């Protein structure tokens, strides 16, 4: 059908024209393909109306239909719009509502996520809106409701917004599973007009992104790519003198004063800081150095109360704020018109993230996005130069989809069981057609079913296990209301420490802090949250009660967010930049600035070129250090360090502790580490890689750490939610304990295997590791013996993430450690 002849299309064109606008070609392409029954992916730069490419497609089809509305409450839902962030939904809903009013289409737009009030949810249950904006977690919560299976009869389209964000996480799997279920429900009703679309920024594996969303290769599928380019201006904030920048650090406050003129001359500035704790410190610091900013800047992160965040977002829209300090909470698609400048403090670790953040400024088409990079330590200047180059050449990372995540599958099945129940044969077929579980074996499925129905153990004569049971209608269901309630509180795959709400004594919520942080506070202690200094009074009913403090300075809570590793794309460009730094063959002002540091590195040791692997051996009172610099990112270094430690330990019994950062790693031992050129090629060899990795990570804690999330997602460990649920004391236990008992008593547990798999495939990134080792084999090994720490080694030294690796017998090792500690006394 040619859409230009349809009345819906004509109406939309008219409406756009009346507003002085005209659709981009990719938007018209998307509308036409949608009308022709295609699923697909829209790929366009920020600010060019990706939302309208799909929202209007659904609208056109609705306007074309002669009978517009089906008034029966349950049949209303037409479009599910999945957004990764809660903050996105509000603005999208507003834009959609405005459009629908102007088009005189009598549709309702509903928002459903963690911030939606209970009353509104009940209202939605009675009468679904035509368009539902929802997070992946809330979509699963919807599936967990009785009667939910009848809601999707007339659903025409599911859109996964910011799909590139969801793709590389278990939340993406939640989306895949929900889509598979909704498709399955429509199949029963013999109404299969559902189209699934994604909206994605440019990523390295965009074809694969489509495969995950619509795994049926025979379906009508298409990628609609906009032929448009977004102009981005990148500038580094340089110190006047390189000595003012520390060799290591994450904060970067020393250069804060340089931001003041930038903030002053911009309309509104977004300042991105990598962690929530640091953003609190930045907020305080900016106010300290420029008191004039009081009342004109704000702080926005995920632990700040919903109302407060709302207020900040509104103030951003209206241009009341001069600057907002933000974390990834403002990364995604919200369009704040007044924002014309973005500042990135510290390394963004990846090109895609940096460009995404840059796109927060100059949001309208053809406007230039302006971003400043503010380094927190000297070597980050090299990263700045690398990012500029990668951005110029469009060298953007891939997002690897998750597969075979049994924790998420276990959670999903229980979700269905507390909703309308499920038929295991049907669901097995459905999940086999998802990208995440297309490789699942029948015996694995049997294990998963056994895990939720008999507790993973069918042999025991005494089986008290109660969770999912078969109902009279032949469907698997959860009967216990208590179990159902507990499960609902734990739907989702984002695991954080238990959080407590923070509230003023006089009333009013400020935000949330992690429980362990609170346990360290005494009455009268001060801490910072949402930019205020608060005095801790006490904890009552899972709520932290505070009053405004008279103090000006206080500690900031540290929220345990994951630290992102450097991407391999950026790593490669970075190595090249190291090449250029000393011989001055470049045009980067950042490299000029950092030049004195490179001279010092060259004087004390050596500056590695991109065809070299630098190894530094340093001996001091702490022990014998080996530093190596492959520039492959923290995660790869973690494995590489364990691998090298293991291979060295085959040469002689030796124990190491390991530290790493994005540039390299350190092995620290109390005895001299054997190392020369031939040993280096041997221990950095790709030969027997898989076997040696298995042996080297065997004795580490990696899998145990991964298991923490797995235990929460699969419902083994209850986190409890702020103010909502007090865990039953007799049911408390830790993920670590489960890891131990499964290792001892249930070796075939698939969740245990998943922990090791996650270590292997995500953490190890074996292909990336193998490629790195191949590269090193073709490199020149340079070994130096510096007298003291070098500009390269110092930041690793400062880093505290440590692993242990040992080939000694445990008893022997303890004896030695004991002997040492006695010596110290």
């Amino acid at each position, binding site marked *: 059908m040619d859409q230009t002849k349809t009345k819906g299309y004509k109406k939309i064109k008219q409406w756009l024209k009346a507003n002085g606008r005209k659709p981009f070609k990719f938007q018209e392409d998307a509308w036409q393909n949608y009308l022709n029954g295609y699923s697909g992916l829209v790929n366009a730069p920020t600010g060019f109306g990706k939302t309208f490419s799909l929202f209007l497609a659904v609208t056109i089809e609705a306007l074309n239909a002669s009978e517009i509305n089906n008034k029966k409450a349950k049949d209303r839902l037409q479009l599910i719009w999945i957004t990764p962030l809660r903050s996105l939904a509000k603005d999208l809903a507003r834009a959609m509502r405005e459009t629908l009013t102007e088009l005189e289409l009598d549709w309702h737009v509903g928002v459903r996520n963690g911030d939606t009030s209970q009353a509104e949810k009940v209202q939605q249950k009675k009468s679904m809106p035509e368009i539902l904006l929802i997070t992946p977690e809330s979509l699963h919560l919807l599936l967990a409701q009785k009667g939910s299976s009848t809601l999707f009869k007339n659903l025409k389209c599911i859109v996964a917004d910011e799909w590139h964000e969801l793709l590389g996480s278990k939340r993406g799997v939640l989306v895949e599973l929900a889509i598979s279920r909704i498709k399955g429900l429509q199949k029963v009703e013999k109404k299969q007009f559902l189209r699934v679309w994604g909206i994605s920024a440019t990523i390295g594996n965009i074809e694969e992104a489509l495969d995950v969303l619509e795994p049926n290769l025979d379906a009508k599928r298409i990628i609609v790519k906009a032929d448009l380019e977004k102009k981005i201006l990148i500038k580094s904030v340089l110190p006047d003198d390189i000595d003012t920048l520390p060799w290591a650090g994450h904060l970067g406050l020393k250069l804060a004063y340089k931001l003041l003129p930038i903030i002053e001359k911009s309309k509104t500035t977004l300042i991105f800081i990598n962690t929530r704790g640091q953003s609190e410190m930045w907020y305080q610091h900016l106010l300290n150095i420029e008191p004039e900013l009081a009342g004109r800047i704000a702080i926005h992160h995920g632990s700040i109360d919903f109302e407060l965040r709302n207020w900040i977002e509104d103030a951003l829209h209206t241009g009341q704020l001069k600057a907002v300090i933000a974390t990834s909470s403002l990364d995604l698609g919200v369009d704040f018109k007044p924002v014309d400048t973005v500042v990135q403090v510290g390394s963004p670790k990846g090109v895609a993230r940096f460009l995404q953040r840059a796109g927060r400024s100059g949001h309208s088409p053809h406007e230039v996005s302006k971003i400043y990079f503010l380094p927190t330590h000297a070597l980050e200047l090299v990263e700045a130069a690398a990012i500029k180059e990668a951005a110029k050449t469009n060298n953007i990372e891939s997002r690897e989809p998750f597969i075979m995540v049994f924790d998420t599958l276990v959670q999903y099945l229980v979700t269905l069981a507390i909703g309308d129940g499920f038929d295991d044969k049907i669901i097995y077929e459905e999940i086999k057609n998802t990208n995440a579980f297309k490789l699942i074996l029948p015996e694995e499925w049997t294990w998963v079913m056994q895990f939720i129905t008999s507790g993973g153990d069918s042999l025991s004569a005494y089986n*008290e296990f109660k969770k999912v049971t078969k109902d009279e209608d032949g469907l698997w269901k959860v009967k216990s209301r208590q179990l159902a309630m507990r499960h609902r509180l734990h739907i989702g795959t984002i695991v954080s420490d238990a959080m407590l709400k923070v509230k003023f004594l006089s009333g009013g919520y400020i935000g949330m802090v992690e429980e362990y942080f609170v346990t360290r506070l005494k009455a009268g202690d001060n801490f910072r949250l949402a930019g205020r200094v608060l005095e801790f009074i006490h904890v009552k009913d899972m709520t932290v009660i505070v009053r405004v403090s008279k103090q000006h300075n206080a500690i900031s809570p540290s929220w345990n967010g994951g630290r992102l590793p450097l991407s391999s794309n950026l790593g490669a460009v970075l190595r090249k930049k190291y090449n250029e730094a000393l011989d001055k063959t470049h045009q980067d002002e950042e490299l000029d600035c950092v030049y004195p540091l490179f001279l010092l590195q060259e004087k004390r040791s050596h500056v590695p070129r991109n065809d070299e692997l630098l190894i530094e051996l340093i001996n001091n009172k702490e022990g014998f250090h080996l530093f190596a610099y492959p520039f492959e990112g923290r995660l790869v270094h973690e494995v590489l360090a364990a691998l090298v430690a293991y291979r060295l330990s085959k040469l002689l019994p030796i124990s190491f502790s390991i530290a790493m950062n994005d540039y390299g790693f350190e092995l620290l031992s109390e005895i001299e580490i054997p190392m020369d050129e031939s040993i280096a090629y041997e221990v950095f060899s790709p030969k027997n890689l898989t076997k040696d990795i298995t042996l080297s990570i065997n004795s580490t804690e990696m899998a145990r750490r991964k298991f923490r999330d797995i235990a929460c997602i699969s419902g083994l460990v209850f986190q409890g939610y702020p103010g909502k649920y007090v865990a039953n004391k007799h049911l408390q236990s830790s993920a670590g304990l489960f890891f131990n008992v499964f290792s001892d008593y249930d070796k075939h547990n698939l969740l245990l295997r998943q922990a090791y798999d996650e270590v292997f495939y995500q953490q190890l990134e074996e292909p990336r590791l193998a490629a790195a080792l191949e590269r090193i084999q073709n490199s020149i090994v340079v070994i130096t013996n510096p007298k003291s720490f070098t500009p390269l080694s110092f930041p690793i030294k400062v880093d505290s993430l440590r692993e242990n690796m040992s080939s000694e017998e445990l008893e022997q090792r303890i004896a030695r450690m004991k002997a040492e500690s006695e010596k110290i006394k």
Partner: protein
Amino acid sequence: MNLHFLYGKFNIFKLMTITCHGDELILDKERALYLPQHQLLAISDLHLGKSAHFRSAGVQVPATIAQNDLQRLSLLIEKYKPKTLLINGDMFHHGLNTDIDEFSEWRNQYLQLQFLLVKGNHDRLANADYASMQIDIHEPSYCLGPFCFIHDAPKCTEEELYPISGHIHPGVTIVGKAKQRLKFPCFYFGKEYAVLPAFSTFTGLYNIYPKTNDQIFAITPNNVIKV
């Protein structure tokens, strides 16, 4: 403190013998304490029924944990042939369940053996239930020679005696040079009181930080070691 230690030949038996307040004590790596003079085997924090309690609440704990704990206890009974088995509190985790049924059956193998329970905070079964399983109850403590067995040491009022407690599931972290760390369950013998390790393997560890003159015995996978 009059503690002294015998090393050497005992190591092959995976245990350590110490003298404490004039009595000989054997620390077994299966998280048990044996008093040869009294032919008494003491364990603490057995938490029987914990795995079944979790399972009945829909948490997939391996069902074999409780059986395994009882097997370990059987081996200890065969090894020391004690007259008395003392459980120093938290014998049963919650209410009656299938794990407890299994225990009852298991208990019938040892009708000659006296079972003593010093009640802990988890032990809330009815007196008749204990009686039906032939377990003698002592509350709040059981005194023997120079020792006072009590679940939670600070509650001990027997000032003349040395309290031996449980309750906290003690663990110790051994820190070596080059920032190496290892964590084990342990026996604690301090100036004021002693703490036994939790017997059940389905228990977490509470880190204790020894003061000077405190004696800590770490239980490694193969041995008991003084640290």
